[in-house]
C-alpha cells in the first residue's frame, strides 16, 4: 500500500498572497473584520458597494438587509460552539491513534501505516480548528482526558472496531453540524474534514469486516446506504462519553 501519495496543499490564491504580503491592505481587512468574522461580511459588502455602484442592481429580494450586529455575533458564537465541539472530537481521535501506536498493539505494517496516517490527519484537524477558533477570538476547548486503556486491553480487534466507530461518529457529527454553520469558510473547512472522516470510517469498517451495510448507523463501510446519516451533538457526546475520563 502506498501511503506516501498525497496532494500538495492548494496554493493560496494570488489575491490572498497579495493580502498577506501587503501590510496596508492586510490592516484594512483586519480592521474590517474587527467586529467578528460574521460581522465583517456586512462591512465587506458596504466596502465593495462603492466600486460596484454603477452596475448596482436595484432588485429588492424582499428580505431586509442583514445589518444587526447582535445577530452577527450570535452567528459567530454558534460557529465557535460548533468548532469547539469538533475540536473535542478531533482531540479524542488524535489521542486514540497516538495511544494505539504507542501501545505497539498493531504489528501489521499496513494497518500501522494506516493508523499513523489517520492519526496525523486528526492532529492536522486539531491544529486547524484551534487556529480558527483563536482567530475568531474564541478560546479553544482543552484537550479532554481520555480513557482508552480498557479498549487497548481488549486487543487489536476491539481497537480497530473502536477506531471505526469513532470515525463514523465523527463523520455523522460533521454532517449534523454543516447546515448550522453560518460562516462560509468555516463551512468549507468543515466539509473538507467531513469527507476525510468518512474515508477513514469506510476504510476501517472494511478492515474490521463490516462489509457494505451494517446493523446500525455506525457500522458497515456504507452504513446508511446511499445517504449518510447526521447525528446531533447530544447523541454524539453520549456515544463518546465512555472514552472520556
Amino acid at each position, binding site marked *: 500500500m*502506498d501511503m506516501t*501519495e*498525497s*496532494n500538495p*496543499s*492548494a496554493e*493560496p490564491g494570488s*489575491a*490572498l498572497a497579495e*493580502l*498577506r504580503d501587503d501590510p496596508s491592505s492586510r490592516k484594512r*481587512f483586519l480592521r474590517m*473584520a474587527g467586529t467578528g468574522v460574521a460581522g*465583517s*461580511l456586512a462591512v*465587506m*459588502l458596504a466596502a*465593495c458597494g462603492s466600486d460596484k455602484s454603477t452596475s448596482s442592481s436595484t*432588485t429588492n*429580494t424582499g*428580505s*431586509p*438587509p*442583514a445589518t444587526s450586529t447582535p445577530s452577527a455575533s450570535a452567528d459567530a458564537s454558534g460557529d465557535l460552539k460548533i468548532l469547539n465541539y469538533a475540536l473535542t472530537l478531533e482531540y479524542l481521535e488524535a489521542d486514540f491513534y497516538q495511544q494505539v501506536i504507542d501501545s505497539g498493539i498493531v504489528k501489521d505494517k499496513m494497518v500501522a501505516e*494506516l493508523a499513523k*496516517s489517520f492519526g496525523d*490527519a486528526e492532529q492536522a*484537524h486539531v491544529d*486547524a480548528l484551534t*487556529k*480558527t477558533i483563536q*482567530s475568531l477570538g474564541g478560546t479553544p476547548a482543552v484537550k479532554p482526558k481520555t480513557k482508552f486503556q480498557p479498549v487497548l486491553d481488549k486487543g487489536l480487534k476491539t481497537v480497530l472496531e473502536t477506531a471505526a466507530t469513532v470515525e463514523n461518529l465523527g*463523520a455523522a457529527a460533521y*454532517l449534523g453540524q*454543516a*447546515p448550522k454553520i453560518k460562516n*462560509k*469558510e468555516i*463551512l*468549507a473547512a468543515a*466539509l*473538507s*474534514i*467531513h*469527507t*476525510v472522516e*468518512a*474515508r*477513514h*470510517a469506510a*476504510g476501517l469498517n*472494511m478492515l474490521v469486516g463490516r462489509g*457494505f451495510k451494517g446493523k446500525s448507523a455506525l457500522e458497515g*463501510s*456504507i452504513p446508511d*446506504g*446511499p*445517504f*449518510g446519516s*447526521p447525528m446531533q451533538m447530544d447523541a454524539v457526546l453520549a456515544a463518546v462519553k465512555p472514552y472520556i475520563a
Partner: protein
Amino acid sequence: MTTMKQTNPELAQIEVSGMTRSSFLVRSALTAGAVYGTAAVGPFVSGAFAQGGGGDLDILNFALTLEYLEQAFYAKGVRTVSGLSADTKKLAKQLRDDETAHVDALTKAIKGAGGKPVTAPQVDFGKAYKSEKAFLKLAQTFEDTGVSAYNGAGPAISSPDILAAAGSIVQIEGRHAALIRLANGVTPAPDAFDKPLDMAAVLKAVKPFIKG
C-alpha cells in the same frame, strides 16, 4: 442569479448591492484568509468559492450531471468490463445502486424546488473498460472528483435543507472513494483535508467522458 427565494439575509443583501454571490464569497474568503492566516483556511480558499453565479438549482443540476456520469460508469462497467473479480463486481454494483439513488434524490430535489432536471449526458469511458485495473483507476478519479465537487459547491448552497442533502450524499462519495482506493491498494484518505474543486475544474476533469 436564479429567481429562487433567498433565505439567507446576507445573500439577499448581495443582490441589493449588485454583487454576484460568487464574488462575494471569494471576497469574504479572502478576508477570512487575512484574519485566520493561510494555515487555517489556505487549502479551502482557492477551490471552495469560485462557483459560477448560479444558485442552488444550478448546483443541484451540476451534481446531477456528475451522478449520472458515475451511475452510467458503474452500470455499463458491470456489464462490459471482462474479467472483473467477484469483489470488484460486488463493489461496482453497490456503487451503481448508490449513484442511482443519488440521481433519483437530486432529480426530486430539483423538481421540488421548481427547476428542470438536466438529462443524462451521453458518455464514453473509452479505455477504462479494457481491464479491471483501468476500470478501478477511473472509478477512483470519479469518486475523488465527486467529493471535491460537492465540497467545492457546498458553501455556495443557500438552502440549509439542500446543504444537508448534499452533505449526506458527499459523505457516501467519500466512503466510495475510500473503498475504491483500498481496492486499488492505495491509502483511502490521501490528505487530511479533502480539497474542494470549483465547477470549472470539475467539468474539465470529467469532460473527456462526456460526448458532445
